[in-house]
């Protein structure tokens, strides 16, 4: 598990590229699965549709990224095998994506934090030296920008809303903020990818993400929590207790009937 963290200074190996692609793919896949849990349960039909549509875009992005990751890996695994036949330690999503939905306000806070990150990350990845990744990023960026319009809009409405809604989203923000350090702090693999122009330096993403969030939180009259210490390592396969439960549900059918199709 630590091999990815001990990158060599030389060229990017297939294994390293594979792992970096999984970070992006798994974040979209896991977040999409979380949003899917809202179907039939959202506070209004419009929000039900919205969360399901965002999930659909995220699954599409995950599929493109997983298919490409499978090619890079070169062991014949396709996107379905990668999505449904890996266990939690082999998932490399950021830890924030797997956090439970909580109430609608918590889901919106999680979404806004991740939308802002994906918008900035994919925007920079359009300039990646990895052509296929750049092409996927160009598509994903447009979709994530639209997701941000939705999540940021709700963040402002709830934050600058009633006493109750404001208290709830502030509590959600305070609770989830500790996971944001992982999005913005590079580890050895992030730095290695950046040194080859495959990914942007995370310091750049951090400054853009912070500016985007600061403006949204101000409009939402929400208090920005203090900087978060960085004890989470989902992108290295070390997850919170929630991912295993999520995968149990998501992978149930393929685990029970491997290779089953519609």
């Amino acid at each position, binding site marked *: 598990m630590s091999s990815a963290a001990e990158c060599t200074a030389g060229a990017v190996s297939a294994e390293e590229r594979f792992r970096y692609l999984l970070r992006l793919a798994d974040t979209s896949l896991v977040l999409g699965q979380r949003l899917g849990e809202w179907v039939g349960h959202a506070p209004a039909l*419009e*929000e039900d*549709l*919205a969360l*399901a*549509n*965002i999930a*659909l*875009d*995220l*699954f*599409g*992005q995950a*599929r*493109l990224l997983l298919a490409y990751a499978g090619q890079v890996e070169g062991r014949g695994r396709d996107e379905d095998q990668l999505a449904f036949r890996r266990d939690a330690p082999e998932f490399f999503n950021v830890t924030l994506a797997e956090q439970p939905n909580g109430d609608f306000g918590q889901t919106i806070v999680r979404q806004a934090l991740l939308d802002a990150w994906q918008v900035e990350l994919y925007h920079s990845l359009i300039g990646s030296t990895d052509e296929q990744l*750049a*092409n*996927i990023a*160009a*598509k*994903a960026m*447009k*979709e994530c920008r*639209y997701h941000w*319009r*939705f999540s940021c*809009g709700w963040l402002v409405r709830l934050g600058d809303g009633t006493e109750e809604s404001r208290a709830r989203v502030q509590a959600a923000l305070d609770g989830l903020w500790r996971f944001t350090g992982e999005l913005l702090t590079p580890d050895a693999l992030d730095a290695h990818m950046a040194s080859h122009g495959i990914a942007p330096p995370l310091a750049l993403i951090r400054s853009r993400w912070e500016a985007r969030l600061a403006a949204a939180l101000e409009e939402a009259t929400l208090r920005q929590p203090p900087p978060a210490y960085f004890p989470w390592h989902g992108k290295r396969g070390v997850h919170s207790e929630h991912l295993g439960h999520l995968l149990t549900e998501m992978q149930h059918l393929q685990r029970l009937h491997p290779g089953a199709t519609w």
Partner: protein
Amino acid sequence: MVAAATSPAAEPLVRRVWQALETVMDPEIPVLSIVELGIVRHVRLREDGLVHVGLTPTYSGCPATELIHRSVREALLGQGLAAVVLETVLWPAWSSEWMSEQGRQKLEAYGIAVERAPAGRIACPRCASRAVERLSEFGSTPCKAHYRCSACLEPFDTFKCI
């Protein structure tokens, strides 16, 4: 969207393929062909003797993508064209601006509004009033948002501007 044929002899074949593609309707919006939607990126006769058709998805996760690929194969088979390769083109990413003017008019006649530049100019497809309100950024398919007319009170879908 101009077809780049490899030789003059290929032109009639390429034209036939385009004509066949014009009969393939979007499964979610059956008045609109995939050519009008702007998702056919190229038709080329390549050195391998096969016709290559480039298709791009509107949204990464659009569930209609696979059905569209199947419909394209069937339409071309119906024209006796079996030696076809379907290619997925991701770059440049599809934009709602790629929809043809004819496509926009068909959509509006069908009851789906289209956001026109400058962004935000949306008219009710029923009574043409500009007094509309957005109910949700999202709608019944990944490519649509949901609006309501403040004048005639009719709710309607709007093609998202992306």
